[in-house]
């Protein structure tokens, strides 16, 4: 089961124009998963200015999606943009790493 990100950011009409699409795999409300969700939200608001789409997948409810995407650990963030396709593991506390993945390092600094 796919679940949209918080704050209703998944809006089909705008999706095509987004800078990047995130799929965050979490394990329920476990501590690290919760932390990753919060960090991703803050990151998106700070750097992407609504030009993003977040899909959150709870592996406790839908583990098959995780396996299909080769996600064996949570939290894991799959970043899809026109520039890259990368999986980041952990709580996403390292903002620099996410920016690097999006190749937005310069803008962040």
């Amino acid at each position: 089961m796919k679940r949209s990100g918080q704050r209703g950011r998944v809006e089909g009409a705008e999706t095509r124009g987004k800078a990047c699409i995130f799929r965050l795999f979490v394990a329920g409300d476990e501590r690290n998963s919760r932390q990753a969700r919060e960090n991703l939200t803050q990151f998106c608001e700070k750097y992407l200015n609504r030009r993003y789409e977040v899909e959150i997948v709870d592996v406790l409810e839908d583990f098959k999606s995780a396996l299909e995407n080769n996600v064996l650990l949570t939290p894991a963030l799959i970043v899809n943009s026109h520039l890259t396709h990368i999986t980041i593991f952990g709580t996403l506390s390292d903002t620099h790493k996410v920016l690097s993945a999006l190749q937005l390092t310069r803008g962040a600094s």
Partner: protein
Amino acid sequence: MRIKKPTYQELKERLAEAEAALAALRREEVDAVVSEQHILLLRVKEVEQALRESEEFSSSLLANSPNPIVVINSDTSIRYANPAMEKLTGFSKAELVGTKAPYPWWTEETLEKIHKDFEEAVLKGKGAYKLEEHFQTKSGERFFVEITSTSVKSNGESKYYLGSWVDITERKRVEEALEVSNRFLQIINKQMGMTPLLKEFLAEIHSLTGCAALGVRLLDDAGNIPYHAYVGFNQEFYEKESPLSMKSDQCMCTNVIKGEIDPALPFYTAGGSFYINATSRFLATVSEREKGKTRNECNRVGFESVALVPIPIGDGIHGLVHVADPRENMVPLEMVELLEKVAMQLGTGIHRVKVEEALQKAHNGLEIRVQERTAELVATNEALRHLSRKLLSAQEDERRRIAGDLHDTLGASLAGIKLMVENSLKQIGDPANAANESLNTIILEIQEALDECRRIQTDLRPSMLDDLGLLPTLSWYFRRFQTIYSGIRIEQEVQIMEDDVPPLLKIVVFRVTQESMNNIAKHSHSTLVRLSLRKLNDRMELILQDNGRGFNLEKVASQETTTRGLGLTSMRERTELSGGSFNIESTEGKGTIIRASWPLREND
């Protein structure tokens, strides 16, 4: 199916991914591992946190427990000791942790028992159980604990031993004090005199304190405080110390009995006792001038431990218990306080014995006085009886003398006058002479006077009693009685020989019979009198029974002393004074029986 080989770039990306995953794991930022079979949640931090909190909680519980707790490893080394344990034993955690058995709080004298208990509890891994032990602190003070021991097992093997202690020293002291108090109460309550009481008391004090020398001083009326009982003091010490006087001597003994103590000084207790556990070391700190104030004899003869415990009786101190020993530290404060309690009991016991002795003395004095008074009364009674006997004897003698005088003088004169008148009558010779009638009348008058004289003479003392004996006299008396009182029939039954009648009893039997017959004639209205005089075994028995109207004995007896009465007292006196017994039975309307009997041997 053909599997597509990954490209180098793909392999590189996967490796990077795997490294990133590994790094996340190292950073502990992973919650779950996903596989087809299951999702494994990783909660290392939470578990660690919970564990840490749990440990903190357990540690806090142990550390804040008011009871001493020790955790011992299976190799007997101490793993943990809580602050309460440190406080009670005096050993720090650093000194205890790692120490193996025997532990520093074990005592020499109970080592064997503790070892055995310890083996049961720890080495054999027995389940939880309780036991009481006697341990010592780092400074050597004894204490009692109740230990609840628990074996903590892991995989069936004892891993730790947890000992939780409860300090029961105070409870034990109270129990010991109660037990001691009971033992002394039993002694005090025994019914015994002063010496055995004090001896038993000292034996119990010896068993309680273990001290070598003991004594009890008691204050006497002269102000001296001699030992009334002692053990362990040598003769020289006893002879020198026993004559101490409250008036002329000054030493700790007199201070304690006078109550002249200062509880602020370290060798006095609040209960008024003196105690010291190292006399030599103490005196070394005292100036010669100060030493001079007391005699210090105990120290001179080598006693290092000394306790002088007052014996209170009522409001005052009447003596002391002296406890001494050549060893140091034999009379600690708690022992002295215990001795104060038992000395109080001794005071009660001494008071009881003194009261009993005083009572016994008073009783003995009374007994002696009673005996003296009884002896006086017996002597007086004997004197009275002797006097009565003398009186009766004198009376009889007097009667005999008067009877004799009547016979010899008046009787003889009357007989002579009668003879002379009869001669005169013969000389006249003439029957028609007018003087004859007159002379015959005179002769008759003289004869009547002679008869009266004889009758008085016989009443006073029948001479035939002395001349012929009792039995003929009684026969004569009854014959004469019947000539006067012909309406009263007399039946006689005499079963005794004249020779069997003791001479001294003859007049008694006659007088009792005479008095009884007089009563019968005057008051009884009888028609029949039965007399029985017989020898019965070793006694002579006289019974006089009439069929008259009888009388009220109590009423007559009460009149006997004030009026002339029936002469019952006189009959009883005569019988009893002559060694016999007298009994009278009478019922109004049913006649009277008089019984008198005498033992024959004594009067033989």
